[in-house]
């Protein structure tokens, strides 16, 4: 913004040129001067543009069409969005569930990742590697969900039902994954259990990347305990990593549907009790073949994530003060 105004004022000192032309040529000059930068950016930039930017733009375009993947897309304007907010009752349930769900699992999983990474940071590399693996296990082992389906199995052989019946707390087995009251809490527990993923590893690497001399001089300067060290030395150095983790938590908690789908066995839950925006999207995209509508859901979800990312950024700016 500031550079724009600076460039815009130059024509007054160079009256010979038209303002637009002068600005353009100075931009071109700068680009040519920094050509090496663009060379470094090019390999990633080109692939990113072709395989990420273009598909995203195409999806945004499709959100204004009716597209069933068999016939060519037909332009319908904002109809999908009108339908989404005014006619689709299930979508509103999904929005409510997603917000509830994201506001619980997002912050909790984020804290869990950081605290565990911080605790194991003191250990020797080999010990730390093994412990990190144990925490990361739900993300790396292919069959992670089987354990949970065993625990929450709806018959008397399910581990939880068996335990509760043995203890005499219940007399009839409970259909954990079909009963609307239980699905959401169960999903939250499972997601938290799976949450030690990418951000966890990034926090480990980030903590190890801190300069050890910072803490030695901190100890001399009167840092008394680990909490002071955390707040005054570690966290301010970790702002970038914390933002990274925050984005992972936001995208993870807003798009968590695969967990629900795998746990329940299909994208739809009883009475839509654990229905999230992402499942709504999967329902329309892969079951009903209404891709235009699915794209409009993705766009709305995208804006929701951007807004929460901005909020988190504001919060993180206060760290260490």
């Amino acid at each position: 913004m500031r550079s724009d105004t600076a460039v815009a004022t130059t024509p007054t000192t160079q009256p010979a040129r038209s303002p637009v032309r002068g600005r353009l040529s100075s931009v071109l000059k700068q680009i040519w001067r920094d050509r090496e930068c663009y060379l470094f950016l090019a390999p990633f930039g080109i692939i990113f543009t072709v395989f990420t930017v273009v598909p995203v733009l195409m999806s945004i375009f499709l959100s204004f069409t009716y597209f069933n993947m068999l016939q060519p897309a037909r332009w319908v304007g904002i109809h999908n969005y009108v339908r989404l907010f005014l006619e689709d009752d299930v979508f509103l349930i999904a929005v409510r569930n997603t917000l509830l769900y994201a506001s619980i699992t997002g912050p909790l999983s984020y804290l869990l990742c950081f605290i565990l990474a911080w605790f194991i940071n003191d250990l020797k590399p080999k010990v730390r590697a093994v412990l990190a693996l144990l925490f990361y296990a739900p993300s790396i082992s292919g069959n992670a969900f089987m354990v949970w389906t065993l625990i929450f199995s709806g018959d008397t052989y399910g581990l939880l039902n068996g335990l509760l019946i043995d203890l005499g707390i219940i007399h009839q087995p409970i259909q954990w994954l079909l009963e609307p009251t239980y699905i959401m809490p169960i999903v939250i527990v499972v997601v938290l259990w799976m949450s030690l993923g990418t951000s966890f590893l990034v926090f480990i690497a980030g903590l190890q990347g801190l300069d050890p001399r910072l803490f030695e001089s901190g100890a001399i300067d009167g840092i008394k305990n680990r909490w002071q060290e955390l707040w005054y030395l570690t966290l301010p150095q970790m702002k970038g990593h914390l933002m990274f983790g925050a984005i992972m938590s936001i995208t993870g908690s807003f798009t968590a549907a695969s967990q629900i789908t795998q746990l329940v066995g299909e994208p739809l839950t009883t009475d839509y009790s654990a229905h999230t925006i992402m499942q709504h999207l999967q329902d329309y995209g892969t079951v009903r073949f209404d891709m235009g509508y699915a794209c409009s859901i993705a766009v709305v979800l995208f804006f929701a994530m951007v807004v929460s990312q901005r909020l988190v950024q504001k919060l993180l700016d206060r760290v260490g003060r």
Partner: protein
Amino acid sequence: MALSLSIREKKLARSVGGDAAAFFFLFLAASFTALPIVFAISNAFKPLSELFLFPPTLIVRHPTLANFQDLFGLMAQSWVPMTRYFLNSLIIVALGTVGNVLAASMAAFILSTRKFIGANLFMGMVVLSLMFASEVTAIPNYIIIAKLGWIDTYASVIVPAWGSTLGLYLMKKFIDAMVDDSLLEAARIDGASEFRTYWSVVMPIVRPAWLTMIILLFQALWGTTGGNFIYSEQLKTLPHALNQIVQGGVARQGVGAAVTVIMMILPISVFIYNQSKIIQTMGTSGMAN
């Protein structure tokens, strides 16, 4: 006291009570999250009769190697030799990982150390793209790969992986945090080219970042079946081939349990190796202060 000294080289602002509490918490959490690995390994050694036992057991009672013997027997009968599937997987994982680490770290290096027109816009787009649901971009992606004529080639899986945004964002954050301006200044005064600064100065400093990136990429690419893009049987990957064997019937449950363990071996090895290489190094950043 002895305990805390044995696990840590340097002793800074830490109390023994705090260490004990931290260990207790770590132990609780680890025993909770380690369940799937314990269960998977235990299952692989269960005889069929025990696999179908209700209620299921967490720990195997009569361990046997039969599942692995069955699996190797079935693998030997495969129409395309198993080594070919394994090689396909290795090609995709190796090229995909190396390419993404190089492309993303070069871009992150220049975005982090230089100011140029479009840099902020580019970075903004990368962050935003992380928040767009990949479910709906799958179809445009397929169209693009088809237009490029890459259907049924390794490129359909490898090249898009090079442009994976997570790695760029990760590298950018680490270079921002770990590489000091004074260090870059010193390199420039010494007459190092940009590429040399990137390769010999910055990359060694941000080693924790790319070691982490390799873990994540390896895991993601190792699991790929290439299903949407690769049709030729001799180009398909190990996960595809093993899935095929497991889907042979209910009696293949034991083989399936063995497959789960076999597929975990390489990602876990890479994980442990890379994690133990992520270590604090003295005097990397902030040389001047």
